[in-house]
């Protein structure tokens, strides 16, 4: 009942299949970028990609043609600008058409919360008066049965696979992460299967201020991938590589430059 610790390639092959709904999360921190590249290497297709902030990791998956649909709330290169592969897919269907399902951060976060809670939907004060209501089918009005007030409901997100990066795990697969924890816990608990890539495997998880621990029995697979969050970071292990985010702008801006980059990944 505890998470099996396996190499990244094996974990991805085992957990991620064509057509799956896959969520790679990490809110600006502990983003499982290496796992994303492994999905590209294994040539998965037709994925529904879910992520609050599709940044470099999803720009790569989209450009590589792995995605059929994107469920998201903010698609940009943080601190830099646009995601050119994402824009190329939406505006020009290159390399393939990309269906989009667009929400706000609050909506996406609550959809994960509902998924982790075994509820079919979540309620929030959101979207009221925006055009998102018109274009996103997964937003519905709901009335408070006590006050009559109108609020907004969004359906639970329950991905087939949830993937995050974390600082540590022990040999029972108990996972520990700290710093900005984003929706890490929610996406792992909301997903049918989960993979956590970690900086280091330890015998005992040292009690750490601000740390969240997920018991091994709530995680499907753990893979040891030091630096697996690069160019994002793992607090206590690495710093955010801002130059890399800069560099991605020029790589992703041009289809040829991107395909050279892709060839390098697949090589």
């Amino acid at each position: 009942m505890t998470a099996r610790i396996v190499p990244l390639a094996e974990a991805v092959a085992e957990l991620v299949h064509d057509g799956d709904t896959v969520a790679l999360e990490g809110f600006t921190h502990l983003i499982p970028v290496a796992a994303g590249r492994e999905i590209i290497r294994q040539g998965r297709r037709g994925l529904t990609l879910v992520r609050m902030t599709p940044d470099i990791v999803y720009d790569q998956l989209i450009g590589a043609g792995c995605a059929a649909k994107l469920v998201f709330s903010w698609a940009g290169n943080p601190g830099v600008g646009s995601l050119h592969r994402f824009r190329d897919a939406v505006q020009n269907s290159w390399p393939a058409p990309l269906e989009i399902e667009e929400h706000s951060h609050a909506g996406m976060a609550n959809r994960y919360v509902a998924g982790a809670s075994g509820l079919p939907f979540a309620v929030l004060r959101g979207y009221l008066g925006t055009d998102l209501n018109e274009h996103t089918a997964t937003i519905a009005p709901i009335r408070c049965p006590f006050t009559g007030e109108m609020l907004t409901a969004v359906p639970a997100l329950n991905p087939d696979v949830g993937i995050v990066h974390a600082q540590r795990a022990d040999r029972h697969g108990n996972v520990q992460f700290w710093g900005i924890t984003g929706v890490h816990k929610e996406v792992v608990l909301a997903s049918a299967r989960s993979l956590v890539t970690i900086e280091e495997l330890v015998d005992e998880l040292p009690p750490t201020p601000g740390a969240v621990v997920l018991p091994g029995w709530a995680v499907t697979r753990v893979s040891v991938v030091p630096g697996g969050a690069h160019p994002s970071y793992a607090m206590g292990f690495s710093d955010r590589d801002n130059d890399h985010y800069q560099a991605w702008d020029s790589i992703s801006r041009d289809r040829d430059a991107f395909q050279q980059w892709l060839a390098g990944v697949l090589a």
Partner: protein
Amino acid sequence: MMTVAAARALRGDTRCFVGIGLPSTAANLARRTHAPDLVLVYESGTIGAKPDRLPLSIGDGVLAETADAVVSVPEMFNYWLQPGRIGVGFLGAAQIDRYANINTTVIGADYAAPRVRLPGAGGAPEIAASCGEVIVVVRQSARTFVDRVDFVTSVGHGKGPGDREQLGLRGRGPVLVITDLGVLEPDPDDRELTLTRVHPGVTAEQAVAATGWPLRVAATLRTTEPPSEEELTALRELTGSTEGIR
């Protein structure tokens, strides 16, 4: 000047919800000058961050290391933003209309086939809905200041008076739109954005020309105080460390 004007708009006794870029610079500038007690809240989950240098992303380690508390993203939106605990929210815009409605989603009338696909909503719709008040910071041009936004990502004052109340939006909405030319404020009666201040050396005509609708100009048009030595020094200290990063 935009940054300085935005910083000045922040009082010290409140909490400010900041995104990266100019809002973050302005909020940190305010904290270093007239508002040392200003509480910076980043949507990544850091409450009371005290960065000594400007963070390059809303998730920089320095924010978590210096924060009074770090919470999960669902908690940030549900326990802290949604109930109206945050006094001021900063927003940018790709398009903004005469009622300060904001578009950061698509340029072009057809959502399915946009002329330009923008990043999207992020935290903006709920920041616009739930913060005590909203300050919009955006460079002024006729392409950005449009009569009607192509897509309402975040509600300003809707179609005019009473719209926010009717929608059940609990914050007061945009109270200031700070641009590189001056400052616009919603008319107290009909909520239409009105030019109330110009920055030093800028004329009302320039601001009107840089607006896609017939921009109203306040009867008594004031001029922004030029940046003080203290403000410029603090700004240099903050930005120095992130030179070359946009």
